[in-house]
């Protein structure tokens, strides 16, 4: 009995990583379709998107590295799909060099929706590329848009696009931030604080940092990690990467709970007793 407890207390941490890796891989290869529920925060986020219309202009900021995109891609794709369905005008900006390839992935994922709503580059959407490397760039774009940004990602002038209607922060209907935390504080300080409505889709580790801004009213809604993205996909009726990942996500959490229980049994059954015996 003691040897089992000792094993529970002292097993190699790489076993945890390996078990998680195997569980996630197996569940992604053979999904079983576990049900998901929609949280109130996702409902709130969905309501903000649902209220958009053809006259609205949205600044979608990809505040993420490529690794972070893997976590929030479902939220990004589902959100921008709704914006297209509402026929709002979308400007996609990037705050990390690694994210410059992401707009193309997102737009190709929603190509059929864009074709259906006859989205035209320049008139309905613009991809800016890497334009927010630091807080100063965000601040200047908020204050004087055309003084800070001249070209799109493809090197063409933004003159003649729907961005002609943008002069400063007040001309945006919505700032939609997809973040691992890079220029999020700058966006809050130079757009949100001035009064531009903001919504955010953050990675898991950022949620506790972002949530207080919901209470202050700077964020209108918060979409939480991949789980929130899956819920949004469910609400919009377009299953995507979020929903297909939920089995692995759920079973991964169950495995972690099991490992925490095992670790605690080991701690109370062996480590703590061993400590007491020494005393």
């Amino acid at each position, binding site marked *: 009995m003691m040897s089992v407890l000792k094993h529970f207390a002292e097993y190699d941490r790489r076993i945890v990583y390996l078990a*998680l890796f195997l569980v996630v891989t197996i569940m992604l290869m053979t999904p079983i379709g576990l049900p998901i529920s929609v949280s109130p925060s996702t409902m709130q986020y969905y309501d903000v998107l649902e209220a958009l219309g053809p006259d609205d202009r949205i600044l979608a900021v990809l505040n993420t590295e490529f690794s972070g995109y893997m976590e929030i891609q479902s939220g990004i794709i589902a959100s921008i799909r709704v914006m297209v369905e509402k026929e709002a005008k979308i400007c996609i900006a990037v705050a990390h060099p690694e994210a410059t390839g992401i707009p193309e992935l997102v737009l190709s994922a929603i190509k059929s929706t864009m074709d259906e709503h006859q989205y035209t580059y320049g008139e309905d959407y613009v991809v800016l590329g890497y334009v927010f490397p630091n807080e100063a760039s965000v601040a200047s774009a908020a204050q004087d848009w055309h003084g800070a940004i001249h070209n799109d990602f493809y090197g063409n002038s933004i003159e003649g696009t729907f961005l002609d209607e943008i002069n400063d922060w007040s001309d945006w209907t919505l700032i939609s931030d997809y973040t691992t935390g890079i220029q999020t504080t700058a966006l809050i300080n130079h757009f949100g604080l001035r009064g531009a409505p903001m919504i955010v889709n953050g990675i898991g580790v950022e949620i506790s940092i972002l949530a207080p801004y919901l209470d202050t009213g700077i964020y209108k809604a918060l979409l939480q990690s991949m789980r929130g993205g899956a819920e949004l996909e469910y609400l919009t009726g377009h299953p995507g990467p979020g929903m297909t990942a939920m089995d692995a996500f759920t079973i991964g959490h169950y495995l972690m709970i099991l490992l925490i229980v095992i670790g605690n049994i080991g701690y109370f059954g062996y480590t703590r007793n061993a400590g007491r015996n020494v005393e």
Partner: protein
Amino acid sequence: MIDTVELSIMVVGCFLSMCMFSTLYGKSSPLYSLAEESYIGFATGLSIVMNLMYIYNTGFVGIMGGDWVLIFGFILGVMALFRVYTKYSYVSRLPIAISLGAQLGLALRTQIYSGFIDQIKATILPLLSGDAKAIVYNWTIFLCVILMLSFFFYTIEQKGSIGVSAKIGEYLMYASFGAIFAQTFMGRLSLLVGTIQNFTVPPWKKPILIACMAIVLAALIALDKLNLLEKLTPEE
């Protein structure tokens, strides 16, 4: 029909990712080093190109459009490069000081509101009006803030009612740390799921994932048997 470029990206990405996971084997691995250094190389190259593009699009295009003040940005940028030349490295202090000062000024002006005053204002809530859910929510915030703040009353001896309040505040903080840990785990698991999902959806990618896993595992075992794992791993 699978695009050749997409297939190549998938194969290289999947193989390098599995090489990254070779760290789970428990020994130094040249495959891990290959993936790690490839990533650093790719990321650095991309970063340089994107930053040069940013300088062109924001700086050169701006100057050509008549915004002459941007020339000072270029001059300061060139001055910053003197940092690598020991004899004249002092020249770089000016642009560094200007950029640090500007960043600090921008952040301070706004951070006081978004990170401090607005957060305090958000805890000043109506405790008696609104629906039942709002009242419970507001009371929870109000009580938790008071109880947790009492834990930080270091100028008063924590005994009696202050002691009880501080103790409850301490446990409330443990509960919030637990929630933060859970969110952190959720985030890390999402990253893992997202990464692996990239190699399993659409289904044509699955055999490539299995093949890469098998190749990397076989290579690790073979190198281990031949005692080459340590020898072939570059030193830090």
